[in-house]
């Protein structure tokens, strides 16, 4: 039976960029194991000959003519930004001290 350990949940949370505290890890880890146990029932249901479906429609790329159409102004695009400067999104530092 699959089980997600507390350490694995902590690692997954790091991958997903969510700071889970100890109480959240204690709460989530057993719940995720139970969920995983119940979805694991599908392993082996479909044979190798069954193709996967990623989407309900048979999709092909959709193109349009390369013409300029109206879009948001810079002011509109920045209207929800937590911080902005000189018509740009202002973000925290993106490099580490050693970089």
């Amino acid at each position, binding site marked *: 039976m699959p089980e997600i350990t507390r350490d694995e949940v902590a690692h997954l949370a790091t991958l997903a*960029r969510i700071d889970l505290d100890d109480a959240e890890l204690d709460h989530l880890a057993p719940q995720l194991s*139970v969920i995983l146990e119940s*979805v694991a029932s*599908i392993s082996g*249901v479909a044979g190798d000959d069954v193709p*996967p*479906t990623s989407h309900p429609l048979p999709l092909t790329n959709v193109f349009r003519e390369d013409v300029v159409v109206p879009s*948001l102004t810079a002011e509109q695009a920045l209207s929800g930004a937590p911080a902005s400067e000189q018509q740009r999104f202002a973000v925290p530092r993106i490099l580490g001290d050693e970089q």
Partner: protein
Amino acid sequence: MSDLTRLTAAQAADALAAGEITSVALTQAVLDRITAVDADVHAFLHVDAEGALEQAAASDARRAAGAPLHPLDGVPIAVKDVLATDGLPTTCGSKILEGWIPPYDATVVTKLKAAGLPIVGKTNMDEFAMGSSTEHSAYGPTRNPWDLDRIPGGSGGGSAAAVAAFEVPLALGTDTGGSIRQPGAVTGTVGVKPTYGGISRYGLVAMANSLDQVGPVTRTVLDSALLHELIGGHDPLDSTSIDQPLPDLVTAAREGAAGDLSGLKVGVITELTGDGYQAGVLARFQESVDLLVKAGAEVVEVSCPSFVHALAAYYLIMPSEASSNLAKFDAMRYGLRVLPEGIDNPSAEDVMRASRDAGFGDEVKRRIILGTYALSSGYYDAYYGTAQKVRTLITRDFEAAFEQVDVLVSPTAPTTAFKLGEKLDDPIAMYLNDLATIPANLAGVPGLSLPAGLADEDGLPVGFQVLAPALADDRLYRVGAALEAALQAQWGGPLAPPEENLR
């Protein structure tokens, strides 16, 4: 006219066209009703009284000039808070989007505005549409007008409860695994999940792109058809939008209401009835099936053996897509930004982690972690890959079934509305509510839920689900309208929640 809030959208449209009422009077009545009952029901996260009345006055002016934009011009509507509305807050029921005001409209909202429907507000929902009870809203639960201690379904509990409580005649919902149909079932209202690709998703904040679909939430089948035709059709802004015209849905509903289903073949899905379904749900379901026979339909039982794996496949595919989609809430361009405590000069990643922890609720975190797990290397084939194959099997089951019958039917949800809090911390029990609605999303086929009466044991509404092949949404309306007419003839009118509940 005595109580304008009791009018269906079709009746309101007729009364507006005949000059018997004005849009301002109708919209004011709706706003007064919201003021009177929404403190209890909490269907709305935001009410735009001023904007709605302005739109209503403009509608009346157009009509006076003899130039209404659409038959529903002037009929007020509510919009689920997962759809972007220019100038109105759009939170998706999440703290991470608290106070966010989109600079653009979803295409379906553009269509509502172009047709002149006053938008009265944004409705409550489970955070990012993840849930079956609306209890996962960061702004508090919506309550079921039939019993304020019970859930209104989810994720679109706000839209369904608003319509059920006569707070508004029309609402928009979205359905990823049942979020329109299951709330419809437990609140005694009508809800439709159209064919995947039938309605634009542009401006819909995605949970799971390959499953999400916008649809109507109303009190009657005809009202759903009217709204579906208004919002449907091809949109160049959504590359998954189907580039062909919708079938004639309103005509199908009107013809269906005449009550003759001769020549129609109906399949009862073996796997979606029996064990696990409440007795009162099964009793009302069977009565409705009998009414279809009485209307001339031929009913057979059809087996869809892979449907028993639909829930498991869904709870791998949906979290996988959701974990990718919700990566965009990174505290950089919009939404909540939280600076972590105790870190000088935090990095962008530190800020992302702190913001996402503070901004997302439990259920969203559960699904993001689950999706991250299912997509991680080493597990991908076993989980996501297998789930995609099961999706193929479910689609094949539908194809085989629709070779034998024109529509499939089942109860919409296994039980009536449960008590608030009852399943909040038991994810599996919560997920089981979507057992009967999920297969349609996985295969992209359309589904409708309509009220089938009240369960004997608790007096709460039961939903009847109709499923049709992709692009044959008109069949839902034909069958739904016929059944609705037969049921209302028995009841002596539509179902309505006890008014004393709403004070």
